[in-house]
Protein backbone atom coordinates (compact mmCIF):
# COMPACT_ATOMS: atom_id res chain seq x y z
CA UNK A 1 0.00 0.00 0.00
CA UNK A 2 1.42 3.36 -0.99
CA UNK A 3 1.51 6.25 1.44
CA UNK A 4 -1.09 9.00 1.03
CA UNK A 5 -0.18 12.02 -1.05
CA UNK A 6 1.28 14.63 1.29
CA UNK A 7 -0.52 17.95 0.89
CA UNK A 8 -0.02 19.33 4.38
CA UNK A 9 3.12 21.39 3.85
CA UNK A 10 1.64 24.34 5.76
CA UNK A 11 1.77 22.12 8.84
CA UNK A 12 5.31 21.05 8.21
CA UNK A 13 7.62 20.20 5.34
CA UNK A 14 9.99 17.29 4.90
CA UNK A 15 13.62 18.22 5.40
CA UNK A 16 15.24 18.79 2.03
CA UNK A 17 17.92 16.09 1.47
CA UNK A 18 20.49 18.83 0.85
CA UNK A 19 19.66 20.26 4.27
CA UNK A 20 19.79 16.88 5.97
CA UNK A 21 23.28 16.30 4.61
CA UNK A 22 24.56 19.52 6.18
CA UNK A 23 22.83 18.77 9.47
CA UNK A 24 24.27 15.29 9.70
CA UNK A 25 27.77 16.73 9.44
CA UNK A 26 27.24 18.44 12.80
CA UNK A 27 26.25 15.44 14.84
CA UNK A 28 28.92 12.82 15.24
CA UNK A 29 32.49 12.68 16.55
CA UNK A 30 33.98 13.59 13.20
CA UNK A 31 31.64 16.56 12.81
CA UNK A 32 31.03 19.91 14.42
CA UNK A 33 29.29 18.53 17.48
CA UNK A 34 30.97 20.87 19.96
CA UNK A 35 29.17 23.38 22.12
CA UNK A 36 29.30 26.67 20.22
CA UNK A 37 29.66 28.50 23.55
CA UNK A 38 32.79 26.54 24.49
CA UNK A 39 35.96 28.60 24.40
CA UNK A 40 39.44 27.25 24.29
CA UNK A 41 39.18 24.28 21.97
CA UNK A 42 38.66 23.64 18.32
CA UNK A 43 35.38 21.74 18.76
CA UNK A 44 33.64 24.76 20.21
CA UNK A 45 35.26 27.13 17.74
CA UNK A 46 34.17 25.06 14.75
CA UNK A 47 30.62 24.79 16.06
CA UNK A 48 30.55 28.54 16.65
CA UNK A 49 31.73 29.13 13.09
CA UNK A 50 28.91 26.94 11.81
CA UNK A 51 26.34 28.76 13.94
CA UNK A 52 27.51 32.15 12.73
CA UNK A 53 27.62 31.00 9.12
CA UNK A 54 24.05 29.77 9.50
CA UNK A 55 23.06 33.09 11.04
CA UNK A 56 24.54 34.88 8.05
CA UNK A 57 22.68 32.61 5.61
CA UNK A 58 19.34 33.19 7.30
CA UNK A 59 19.98 36.92 7.47
CA UNK A 60 20.90 37.10 3.80
CA UNK A 61 17.80 35.12 2.83
CA UNK A 62 15.39 37.50 4.59
CA UNK A 63 17.11 40.87 4.15
CA UNK A 64 18.34 41.15 7.73
CA UNK A 65 21.69 41.75 9.36
CA UNK A 66 23.24 38.70 11.02
CA UNK A 67 23.18 40.48 14.38
CA UNK A 68 19.42 40.84 14.05
CA UNK A 69 18.89 37.06 14.08
CA UNK A 70 18.06 35.57 17.49
CA UNK A 71 17.83 31.78 17.39
CA UNK A 72 14.78 30.18 18.95
CA UNK A 73 13.33 26.68 18.90
CA UNK A 74 10.66 27.74 16.43
CA UNK A 75 8.17 30.41 15.47
CA UNK A 76 6.00 29.90 18.55
CA UNK A 77 8.91 30.71 20.83
CA UNK A 78 9.82 33.64 18.60
CA UNK A 79 6.24 34.98 18.80
CA UNK A 80 6.29 34.61 22.58
CA UNK A 81 9.66 36.30 22.88
CA UNK A 82 8.51 39.16 20.67
CA UNK A 83 5.23 39.79 22.48
CA UNK A 84 6.31 39.22 26.07
CA UNK A 85 9.79 40.65 25.49
CA UNK A 86 8.50 43.85 23.89
CA UNK A 87 5.68 44.28 26.38
CA UNK A 88 8.10 43.86 29.29
CA UNK A 89 10.34 46.53 27.84
CA UNK A 90 7.61 48.99 26.86
CA UNK A 91 4.99 48.64 29.58
CA UNK A 92 6.01 52.00 31.04
CA UNK A 93 4.83 53.73 27.85
CA UNK A 94 1.52 51.90 27.50
CA UNK A 95 -0.29 48.61 27.89
CA UNK A 96 -2.25 48.27 24.67
CA UNK A 97 -1.67 45.81 21.82
CA UNK A 98 -3.35 45.47 18.43
CA UNK A 99 -3.59 42.15 16.63
CA UNK A 100 -6.10 40.34 14.40
CA UNK A 101 -8.68 37.65 15.04
CA UNK A 102 -7.10 35.46 12.38
CA UNK A 103 -3.64 35.31 13.94
CA UNK A 104 -2.02 32.02 14.88
CA UNK A 105 -2.57 30.78 18.42
CA UNK A 106 1.11 31.46 19.05
CA UNK A 107 0.19 35.15 18.92
CA UNK A 108 -3.37 35.05 20.24
CA UNK A 109 -2.58 33.04 23.35
CA UNK A 110 0.25 35.35 24.52
CA UNK A 111 -2.09 38.30 23.93
CA UNK A 112 -4.77 36.66 26.03
CA UNK A 113 -2.20 36.01 28.74
CA UNK A 114 -1.27 39.69 28.72
CA UNK A 115 -4.96 40.56 29.02
CA UNK A 116 -5.06 38.44 32.16
CA UNK A 117 -2.15 40.58 33.41
CA UNK A 118 -4.08 43.77 32.85
CA UNK A 119 -3.16 44.68 29.29
CA UNK A 120 -5.75 45.70 26.74
CA UNK A 121 -5.81 44.04 23.32
CA UNK A 122 -7.74 45.11 20.23
CA UNK A 123 -8.52 42.25 17.82
CA UNK A 124 -8.97 43.51 14.27
CA UNK A 125 -11.59 41.92 12.03
CA UNK A 126 -10.30 41.06 8.53
CA UNK A 127 -12.52 41.61 5.53
CA UNK A 128 -14.17 38.77 3.59
CA UNK A 129 -10.97 38.17 1.65
CA UNK A 130 -9.07 37.75 4.88
CA UNK A 131 -7.20 41.05 4.56
CA UNK A 132 -6.67 43.45 7.44
CA UNK A 133 -7.24 46.97 6.16
CA UNK A 134 -4.38 49.31 7.16
CA UNK A 135 -6.99 52.01 7.74
CA UNK A 136 -8.65 49.81 10.39
CA UNK A 137 -5.25 49.37 12.01
CA UNK A 138 -4.72 53.14 12.07
CA UNK A 139 -8.11 53.58 13.73
CA UNK A 140 -7.27 51.00 16.38
CA UNK A 141 -3.99 52.59 17.45
CA UNK A 142 -4.11 54.60 20.67
CA UNK A 143 -1.66 56.81 22.50
CA UNK A 144 -0.81 53.87 24.76
CA UNK A 145 -0.39 51.28 21.98
CA UNK A 146 3.09 49.79 22.18
CA UNK A 147 2.80 46.74 19.93
CA UNK A 148 1.04 45.64 16.75
CA UNK A 149 1.31 41.95 15.92
CA UNK A 150 0.05 40.89 12.50
CA UNK A 151 0.99 37.84 10.48
CA UNK A 152 2.33 37.97 6.94
CA UNK A 153 0.72 34.85 5.45
CA UNK A 154 -2.22 33.18 7.16
CA UNK A 155 -1.57 29.56 8.05
CA UNK A 156 -5.08 28.39 7.16
CA UNK A 157 -6.03 30.39 4.11
CA UNK A 158 -2.66 31.41 2.69
CA UNK A 159 -3.83 35.04 2.44
CA UNK A 160 -0.84 37.38 2.30
CA UNK A 161 -1.00 40.71 4.12
CA UNK A 162 0.62 44.02 3.16
CA UNK A 163 3.08 44.32 6.04
CA UNK A 164 4.78 47.38 4.54
CA UNK A 165 1.46 49.22 4.78
CA UNK A 166 1.11 48.22 8.43
CA UNK A 167 4.67 49.34 9.07
CA UNK A 168 3.86 52.71 7.57
CA UNK A 169 0.86 53.06 9.86
CA UNK A 170 2.98 52.21 12.88
CA UNK A 171 5.66 54.62 11.72
CA UNK A 172 3.15 57.47 11.56
CA UNK A 173 1.91 56.54 15.02
CA UNK A 174 5.44 56.71 16.32
CA UNK A 175 5.07 54.59 19.42
CA UNK A 176 3.86 51.22 18.25
CA UNK A 177 6.33 48.53 17.27
CA UNK A 178 5.32 46.08 14.53
CA UNK A 179 5.84 42.37 15.04
CA UNK A 180 5.20 40.11 12.03
CA UNK A 181 4.71 36.36 12.28
CA UNK A 182 6.30 35.27 9.02
CA UNK A 183 6.37 31.54 9.78
CA UNK A 184 4.27 30.77 6.72
CA UNK A 185 5.59 33.35 4.32
CA UNK A 186 9.28 32.73 3.87
CA UNK A 187 9.77 30.73 0.67
CA UNK A 188 6.24 31.46 -0.49
CA UNK A 189 6.37 35.18 -1.26
CA UNK A 190 8.85 38.07 -1.20
CA UNK A 191 10.23 38.73 2.26
CA UNK A 192 12.71 41.50 3.09
CA UNK A 193 12.89 42.30 6.77
CA UNK A 194 14.97 45.41 6.32
CA UNK A 195 12.78 46.90 3.64
CA UNK A 196 9.50 45.89 5.24
CA UNK A 197 9.69 48.40 8.07
CA UNK A 198 8.86 45.69 10.60
CA UNK A 199 10.51 45.86 14.01
CA UNK A 200 10.29 42.19 14.91
CA UNK A 201 9.71 39.12 12.74
CA UNK A 202 9.24 35.45 13.62
CA UNK A 203 10.64 32.72 11.38
CA UNK A 204 10.33 28.95 11.32
CA UNK A 205 12.70 26.41 9.77
CA UNK A 206 10.35 23.48 9.37
CA UNK A 207 7.90 25.36 7.16
CA UNK A 208 10.72 25.85 4.66
CA UNK A 209 12.20 22.32 4.34
CA UNK A 210 14.40 22.77 7.39
CA UNK A 211 14.23 20.89 10.68
CA UNK A 212 11.61 21.14 13.39
CA UNK A 213 12.93 22.72 16.56
CA UNK A 214 14.62 25.67 14.88
CA UNK A 215 13.43 29.21 14.32
CA UNK A 216 14.45 32.78 14.80
CA UNK A 217 13.21 36.14 15.95
CA UNK A 218 14.50 39.04 13.93
CA UNK A 219 15.01 42.12 16.10
CA UNK A 220 15.69 45.25 14.08
CA UNK A 221 18.91 46.99 15.10
CA UNK A 222 18.48 49.68 12.48
CA UNK A 223 15.21 50.65 14.09
CA UNK A 224 16.65 50.47 17.58
CA UNK A 225 14.23 47.85 18.86
CA UNK A 226 14.69 46.69 22.42
CA UNK A 227 13.10 43.68 24.07
CA UNK A 228 13.66 41.91 27.35
CA UNK A 229 14.67 38.28 27.72
CA UNK A 230 12.16 35.69 28.87
CA UNK A 231 14.66 32.89 29.37
CA UNK A 232 17.80 33.04 31.47
CA UNK A 233 20.85 30.87 32.05
CA UNK A 234 23.98 31.41 30.02
CA UNK A 235 23.36 34.66 28.21
CA UNK A 236 23.49 33.28 24.70
CA UNK A 237 21.98 35.23 21.84
CA UNK A 238 22.97 38.60 23.26
CA UNK A 239 21.28 37.65 26.49
CA UNK A 240 17.90 37.37 24.83
CA UNK A 241 17.68 33.61 24.60
CA UNK A 242 19.85 31.64 26.96
CA UNK A 243 20.56 27.99 26.30
CA UNK A 244 22.99 25.94 24.26
CA UNK A 245 22.43 26.56 20.58
CA UNK A 246 21.58 23.37 18.67
CA UNK A 247 24.25 23.61 16.00
CA UNK A 248 22.78 21.02 13.66
CA UNK A 249 19.34 22.65 13.87
CA UNK A 250 20.45 26.17 13.04
CA UNK A 251 22.81 24.86 10.35
CA UNK A 252 19.77 23.13 8.87
CA UNK A 253 17.78 26.33 9.04
CA UNK A 254 20.57 28.24 7.36
CA UNK A 255 20.84 25.73 4.55
CA UNK A 256 17.06 25.55 4.10
CA UNK A 257 16.71 29.32 3.94
CA UNK A 258 19.55 29.68 1.46
CA UNK A 259 17.97 27.08 -0.81
CA UNK A 260 14.50 28.59 -0.50
CA UNK A 261 15.79 32.08 -1.23
CA UNK A 262 17.32 30.82 -4.45
CA UNK A 263 14.43 28.66 -5.59
CA UNK A 264 11.19 30.11 -4.26
CA UNK A 265 10.17 32.03 -7.34
CA UNK A 266 10.43 29.11 -9.75
CA UNK A 267 8.86 26.87 -7.13
CA UNK A 268 5.91 29.22 -6.72
CA UNK A 269 5.32 29.40 -10.46
CA UNK A 270 5.21 25.61 -10.69
CA UNK A 271 3.00 25.22 -7.64
CA UNK A 272 0.58 27.92 -8.76
CA UNK A 273 -0.15 25.86 -11.86
CA UNK A 274 -0.65 22.70 -9.81
CA UNK A 275 -2.79 24.52 -7.25
CA UNK A 276 -5.14 25.84 -9.95
CA UNK A 277 -5.33 22.37 -11.48
CA UNK A 278 -6.32 21.06 -8.07
CA UNK A 279 -8.91 23.79 -7.63
CA UNK A 280 -10.53 23.15 -11.01
CA UNK A 281 -10.63 19.44 -10.28
CA UNK A 282 -12.31 19.99 -6.93
CA UNK A 283 -14.64 22.68 -8.26
CA UNK A 284 -15.96 20.24 -10.85
CA UNK A 285 -17.37 18.09 -8.01
CA UNK A 286 -19.97 20.80 -7.27
CA UNK A 287 -20.83 22.44 -3.96
CA UNK A 288 -17.25 23.56 -3.45
CA UNK A 289 -16.31 27.04 -2.24
CA UNK A 290 -12.86 28.60 -2.24
CA UNK A 291 -11.68 30.44 0.85
CA UNK A 292 -9.34 33.19 -0.24
CA UNK A 293 -8.26 33.63 -3.81
CA UNK A 294 -5.45 34.96 -5.97
CA UNK A 295 -3.78 37.42 -5.97
CA UNK A 296 -4.03 37.55 -2.16
CA UNK A 297 -3.14 33.90 -1.55
CA UNK A 298 0.29 32.30 -1.83
CA UNK A 299 0.71 29.59 -4.46
CA UNK A 300 1.13 26.75 -2.00
CA UNK A 301 -2.23 26.89 -0.23
CA UNK A 302 -5.78 26.12 -1.29
CA UNK A 303 -8.51 26.27 1.35
CA UNK A 304 -11.86 24.89 0.32
CA UNK A 305 -15.28 24.45 1.96
CA UNK A 306 -17.43 21.53 0.86
CA UNK A 307 -21.22 21.68 1.00
CA UNK A 308 -23.27 18.72 2.14
CA UNK A 309 -20.60 16.85 4.07
CA UNK A 310 -19.35 16.86 7.64
CA UNK A 311 -15.74 17.91 8.04
CA UNK A 312 -14.39 15.14 10.24
CA UNK A 313 -15.91 12.51 7.97
CA UNK A 314 -14.50 14.20 4.89
CA UNK A 315 -11.03 14.21 6.37
CA UNK A 316 -11.37 10.57 7.42
CA UNK A 317 -12.65 9.56 4.00
CA UNK A 318 -9.77 11.13 2.10
CA UNK A 319 -7.08 10.18 4.65
CA UNK A 320 -6.15 6.83 3.08
CA UNK A 321 -5.26 8.67 -0.13
CA UNK A 322 -4.37 12.23 0.84
CA UNK A 323 -2.86 13.82 3.95
CA UNK A 324 -4.44 17.25 4.42
CA UNK A 325 -5.65 19.35 7.33
CA UNK A 326 -9.11 20.56 8.12
CA UNK A 327 -9.46 24.29 7.73
CA UNK A 328 -9.98 24.15 11.44
CA UNK A 329 -8.05 25.32 14.43
CA UNK A 330 -9.44 22.41 16.35
CA UNK A 331 -10.08 19.08 14.72
CA UNK A 332 -11.08 17.59 18.01
CA UNK A 333 -14.32 15.85 18.75
CA UNK A 334 -15.72 19.15 19.98
CA UNK A 335 -16.29 20.01 16.35
CA UNK A 336 -15.12 23.58 16.89
CA UNK A 337 -15.07 25.36 13.57
CA UNK A 338 -12.07 27.25 12.27
CA UNK A 339 -12.00 30.64 13.95
CA UNK A 340 -10.12 31.94 10.93
CA UNK A 341 -12.81 30.94 8.45
CA UNK A 342 -15.55 32.11 10.82
CA UNK A 343 -13.80 35.48 11.00
CA UNK A 344 -13.86 35.59 7.21
CA UNK A 345 -17.62 35.18 7.23
CA UNK A 346 -18.05 31.46 6.56
CA UNK A 347 -20.94 29.98 8.52
CA UNK A 348 -20.31 27.35 11.17
CA UNK A 349 -21.24 24.41 8.93
CA UNK A 350 -19.02 25.43 6.02
CA UNK A 351 -16.17 26.40 8.31
CA UNK A 352 -16.29 22.90 9.77
CA UNK A 353 -16.38 21.20 6.38
CA UNK A 354 -13.24 22.83 5.05
CA UNK A 355 -9.95 21.32 4.04
CA UNK A 356 -6.60 23.02 3.61
CA UNK A 357 -4.53 21.60 0.78
CA UNK A 358 -0.95 22.82 1.00
CA UNK A 359 1.41 21.92 -1.81
CA UNK A 360 5.16 21.73 -1.61
CA UNK A 361 8.51 21.32 -3.26
CA UNK A 362 8.01 17.65 -4.04
CA UNK A 363 4.34 17.76 -5.10
CA UNK A 364 3.75 16.31 -8.57
CA UNK A 365 0.99 16.41 -11.20
CA UNK A 366 0.24 12.80 -10.36
CA UNK A 367 -0.29 13.82 -6.72
CA UNK A 368 -2.88 16.37 -7.82
CA UNK A 369 -4.70 13.86 -10.00
CA UNK A 370 -4.78 11.37 -7.16
CA UNK A 371 -6.07 14.02 -4.77
CA UNK A 372 -8.89 15.12 -7.05
CA UNK A 373 -9.96 11.50 -7.50
CA UNK A 374 -9.83 10.80 -3.76
CA UNK A 375 -11.79 13.90 -2.78
CA UNK A 376 -14.32 13.30 -5.54
CA UNK A 377 -14.87 9.75 -4.34
CA UNK A 378 -15.19 10.85 -0.72
CA UNK A 379 -17.69 13.58 -1.56
CA UNK A 380 -19.84 11.20 -3.58
CA UNK A 381 -19.75 8.61 -0.79
CA UNK A 382 -20.60 11.04 2.00
CA UNK A 383 -23.23 12.93 0.07
CA UNK A 384 -24.94 9.65 -0.81
CA UNK A 385 -24.95 8.67 2.87
CA UNK A 386 -26.17 12.11 3.88
CA UNK A 387 -29.06 11.91 1.49
CA UNK A 388 -27.98 14.65 -0.85
CA UNK A 389 -28.44 12.09 -3.61
CA UNK A 390 -31.05 9.89 -1.95
CA UNK A 391 -31.11 6.36 -3.24
CA UNK A 392 -34.47 4.61 -3.22
CA UNK A 393 -34.18 0.90 -2.60
Amino acid at each position, binding site marked *: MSLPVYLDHASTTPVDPRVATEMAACLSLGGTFGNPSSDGHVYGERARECVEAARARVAAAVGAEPAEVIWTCGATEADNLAIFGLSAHAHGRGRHIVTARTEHKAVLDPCRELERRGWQVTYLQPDRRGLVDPARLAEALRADTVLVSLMHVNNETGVSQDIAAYAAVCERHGGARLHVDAAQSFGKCPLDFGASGADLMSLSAHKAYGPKGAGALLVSRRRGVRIEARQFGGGQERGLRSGTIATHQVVGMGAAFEIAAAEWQSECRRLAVLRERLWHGLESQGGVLRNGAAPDVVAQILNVSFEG*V*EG*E*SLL*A*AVAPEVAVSRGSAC*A*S*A*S*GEASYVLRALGRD*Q*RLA*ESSLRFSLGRFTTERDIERTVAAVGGALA*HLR*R*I*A*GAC*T*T*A*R
Partner: protein
Amino acid sequence: MHYSTLTRRYFAAAPGAGSLTGRGVATGIAGSREQGAWVQLQVRTEADGGGNLRVVEAGFLAFGCPHTIAAAAWLAEQATGRLLTADLPLPVEAIRQLFDAPVEKLGRLLVVEDAWRGVCAAAGV
Protein backbone atom coordinates in the same frame (compact mmCIF):
# COMPACT_ATOMS: atom_id res chain seq x y z
CA MET B 1 -8.52 11.27 15.35
CA HIS B 2 -7.97 7.56 15.71
CA TYR B 3 -10.66 5.24 14.36
CA SER B 4 -10.96 1.56 15.20
CA THR B 5 -10.90 -1.03 12.48
CA LEU B 6 -14.63 -1.63 12.98
CA THR B 7 -15.38 2.09 12.68
CA ARG B 8 -13.34 2.38 9.54
CA ARG B 9 -15.02 -0.69 8.04
CA TYR B 10 -18.59 0.48 8.60
CA PHE B 11 -17.72 4.08 7.71
CA ALA B 12 -16.18 3.07 4.41
CA ALA B 13 -18.67 0.40 3.38
CA ALA B 14 -21.75 2.04 4.89
CA PRO B 15 -23.97 -1.01 4.40
CA GLY B 16 -27.63 -0.07 4.22
CA ALA B 17 -27.04 3.53 3.13
CA GLY B 18 -30.05 4.90 1.30
CA SER B 19 -33.78 5.42 1.70
CA LEU B 20 -36.52 2.83 1.79
CA THR B 21 -39.84 3.50 0.06
CA GLY B 22 -43.14 1.70 -0.25
CA ARG B 23 -45.44 -0.13 2.14
CA GLY B 24 -44.51 -1.14 5.64
CA VAL B 25 -41.70 1.37 6.07
CA ALA B 26 -41.28 3.17 9.39
CA THR B 27 -38.98 6.18 9.62
CA GLY B 28 -37.22 7.84 12.55
CA ILE B 29 -35.22 11.06 12.25
CA ALA B 30 -33.09 12.76 14.90
CA GLY B 31 -30.52 15.52 15.19
CA SER B 32 -29.77 18.28 12.73
CA ARG B 33 -27.05 19.14 10.28
CA GLU B 34 -26.58 22.45 12.03
CA GLN B 35 -25.68 20.58 15.20
CA GLY B 36 -23.29 18.33 13.31
CA ALA B 37 -25.20 15.06 13.52
CA TRP B 38 -28.37 14.04 11.67
CA VAL B 39 -29.60 10.47 11.29
CA GLN B 40 -32.54 8.92 9.48
CA LEU B 41 -33.26 5.26 10.19
CA GLN B 42 -35.85 3.24 8.32
CA VAL B 43 -37.13 -0.28 8.62
CA ARG B 44 -39.51 -2.33 6.50
CA THR B 45 -41.42 -4.75 8.69
CA GLU B 46 -43.72 -7.69 8.27
CA ALA B 47 -46.07 -9.13 10.88
CA ASP B 48 -44.82 -12.52 12.04
CA GLY B 49 -48.30 -13.88 12.91
CA GLY B 50 -47.66 -13.65 16.64
CA GLY B 51 -48.43 -9.95 16.92
CA ASN B 52 -44.80 -8.98 16.43
CA LEU B 53 -43.12 -7.04 13.68
CA ARG B 54 -40.02 -8.50 12.09
CA VAL B 55 -37.57 -6.21 10.32
CA VAL B 56 -37.05 -7.50 6.80
CA GLU B 57 -35.01 -4.55 5.58
CA ALA B 58 -33.32 -1.57 7.21
CA GLY B 59 -31.62 1.50 5.86
CA PHE B 60 -30.14 4.75 7.03
CA LEU B 61 -28.99 8.17 5.99
CA ALA B 62 -26.52 10.08 8.15
CA PHE B 63 -24.71 13.38 8.25
CA GLY B 64 -22.03 13.37 10.89
CA CYS B 65 -18.67 12.13 12.02
CA PRO B 66 -17.34 8.66 11.12
CA HIS B 67 -18.58 7.24 14.43
CA THR B 68 -22.10 8.48 13.75
CA ILE B 69 -22.12 6.99 10.27
CA ALA B 70 -20.56 3.72 11.40
CA ALA B 71 -23.00 3.31 14.29
CA ALA B 72 -26.01 4.04 12.08
CA ALA B 73 -24.81 1.54 9.48
CA TRP B 74 -24.15 -1.07 12.13
CA LEU B 75 -27.58 -0.57 13.68
CA ALA B 76 -29.33 -0.92 10.33
CA GLU B 77 -27.41 -4.14 9.72
CA GLN B 78 -28.13 -5.51 13.20
CA ALA B 79 -31.82 -4.70 12.99
CA THR B 80 -32.42 -6.68 9.84
CA GLY B 81 -34.02 -10.04 10.59
CA ARG B 82 -34.85 -9.17 14.21
CA LEU B 83 -38.14 -8.45 15.89
CA LEU B 84 -38.68 -4.69 16.16
CA THR B 85 -38.32 -3.63 19.78
CA ALA B 86 -37.65 -0.29 21.41
CA ASP B 87 -34.40 -1.59 22.81
CA LEU B 88 -31.25 -1.21 20.76
CA PRO B 89 -29.29 -4.40 20.11
CA LEU B 90 -26.75 -2.95 22.56
CA PRO B 91 -26.99 -0.01 24.96
CA VAL B 92 -25.53 3.23 23.57
CA GLU B 93 -22.57 3.09 25.90
CA ALA B 94 -21.81 -0.44 24.74
CA ILE B 95 -22.02 0.73 21.12
CA ARG B 96 -19.57 3.50 21.95
CA GLN B 97 -17.17 0.96 23.38
CA LEU B 98 -17.72 -1.41 20.46
CA PHE B 99 -16.52 1.29 18.08
CA ASP B 100 -13.89 2.57 20.51
CA ALA B 101 -15.36 6.06 20.17
CA PRO B 102 -14.16 8.74 22.60
CA VAL B 103 -16.51 9.65 25.42
CA GLU B 104 -17.18 13.05 23.92
CA LYS B 105 -18.79 11.31 20.95
CA LEU B 106 -21.53 9.83 23.13
CA GLY B 107 -23.86 12.72 22.30
CA ARG B 108 -23.65 11.89 18.62
CA LEU B 109 -24.38 8.23 19.26
CA LEU B 110 -27.43 9.29 21.25
CA VAL B 111 -28.71 10.85 18.04
CA VAL B 112 -28.59 7.38 16.50
CA GLU B 113 -30.55 6.03 19.46
CA ASP B 114 -33.12 8.82 19.13
CA ALA B 115 -33.59 7.95 15.46
CA TRP B 116 -34.16 4.33 16.42
CA ARG B 117 -36.79 5.36 18.97
CA GLY B 118 -38.43 7.39 16.24
CA VAL B 119 -38.60 4.29 14.05
CA CYS B 120 -40.25 2.30 16.83
CA ALA B 121 -42.72 5.08 17.56
CA ALA B 122 -43.63 5.32 13.89
CA ALA B 123 -44.16 1.56 13.78
CA GLY B 124 -46.28 1.66 16.93
CA VAL B 125 -43.81 -0.36 18.97
